[in-house]
């Protein structure tokens, strides 16, 4: 599991989401039913871990793997 996925996973567990529901294919709204404040908390946890500002776009209901890719891309840009 990537570092990014580990951070997201722990953040979701802290929000009370059962660990078995947290898969890379799970969609943030459709499957995990994140509300807007929970999404902000995930963004804050990512900011604490990687010093990145990530906004979770509910309009596309991304899968966690999409979110991981987005963060990793920004990390690459940041270190380039």
């Amino acid at each position, binding site marked *: 599991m990537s570092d990014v996925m580990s951070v997201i996973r722990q953040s979701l567990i*802290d*929000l*009370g*989401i*059962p660990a078995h529901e947290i898969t890379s294919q799970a969609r943030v709204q459709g499957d995990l039913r994140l509300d*807007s*404040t*929970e999404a*902000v*908390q995930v963004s*804050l946890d990512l*900011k*604490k871990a990687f010093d990145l*500002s990530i906004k979770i776009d509910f309009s596309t209901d991304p899968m966690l793997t999409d979110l991981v890719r987005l963060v990793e891309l920004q990390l690459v840009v940041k270190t380039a």
Partner: protein
Amino acid sequence: MRISITGCGIVNACGNDYQAVAQSLLSGHSGISAIRGFPTETHPVKVAGIATRFSAHDAVHPRFVAKTDRFTHFALAASEAAMMGAGIEMKLLDRSRAGIWFGNNSGGWDICERGFKEFYRQGVEMINPWQATAWFPAAPQGFVSIRYELTGCSKSFVADRATGLVAVIHGARSLMRGENDLVLAGGTEAPVTSFGATCYYETGEVADVDPARPVYRTLGNDVGGLVLGEGAAVLTLETTQALLRRQGSSLADIVGVAITTDPGAVGYVRLAYAIRQALAQAQLTPEAIDIVFGEGNGIVSCNAAEEAALWEVFSATKNPPLYTSIKGYTGHMYGGSGATEMIAALIAAQYGKVPATLHAEKAQPFWRLPIATEVTTLKPRHALIIARAREGVNAALILQFSH
């Protein structure tokens, strides 16, 4: 007026459920203890009634734990117990006619204090997203509404020490007005944080209690102040018709209620009037009241006003009611009090025993009504519950038990 109490849930320093609280009240075991949740060496408040055995992770749905404060955790746990105890079948419930009437005096400070630290240490972008929604005093109403998808007429109340009982009275009135068939009524409070306790201390009403001897002398003449407590009490209230429709059973009936205001902390005439109004609504004379679960909070002026009002109403009776204050067990819970006293009355009726007022052997000299200085065998038919706020708001409620 006749509103049935059909279920109850309670959390406080004495325990996390009805049985634990009953055991504590009837054995004279107080939940008042030294505060360990924050450093108290230099803090003015060192003692409180703390729900040390309560765990939100055990009692609250996991999706609500992170985003809600401790006072909402208490309310969610107490609401669940009340709904279960009443045997409410959610499939049959018209949720648009089920409301929530809760009291809370000062919001939630666990998450809020964290938010202050985040703001000052990490910057505005790092404040947790629940800073506002978790703190505000209507949060328990909101989250219980979300939890059970209840959309009936609902309100939240702030009325200082009378907060909890005022909420119950207005909840009962909403049933009488036909707005709801079911009401979750009561309140919750979690003031025992560093900042929260400081706010209460600044009222000048919190007693200076030695943490080595953590006691709350509610009628005592040597302290002159209250001890804070945390917890919640929730009752399911239903109209007689609604109860008959679903063939439920009643634990007790609310038969009279009144709210008045005295001009200031020491006046008592309007409190006496509230008691008489509640009696009139219940179509009872003062002789009918067997027991009073009073405000009795250790503050000399408040106790004196309550005593004077009670004496005015009951001095002419052949057998004045027995008076008790249970705040020595739990601390004063503001929003959590009121419904807690009502549940204590249910306990007294069920067990035929009235909880003793702790440390009442050194009661202030002005008390003239008989005080329950020890657990007293008595099967009450009617109980009077009283709450009184700092600036003179009075609430009185009469319960009737069928034995």
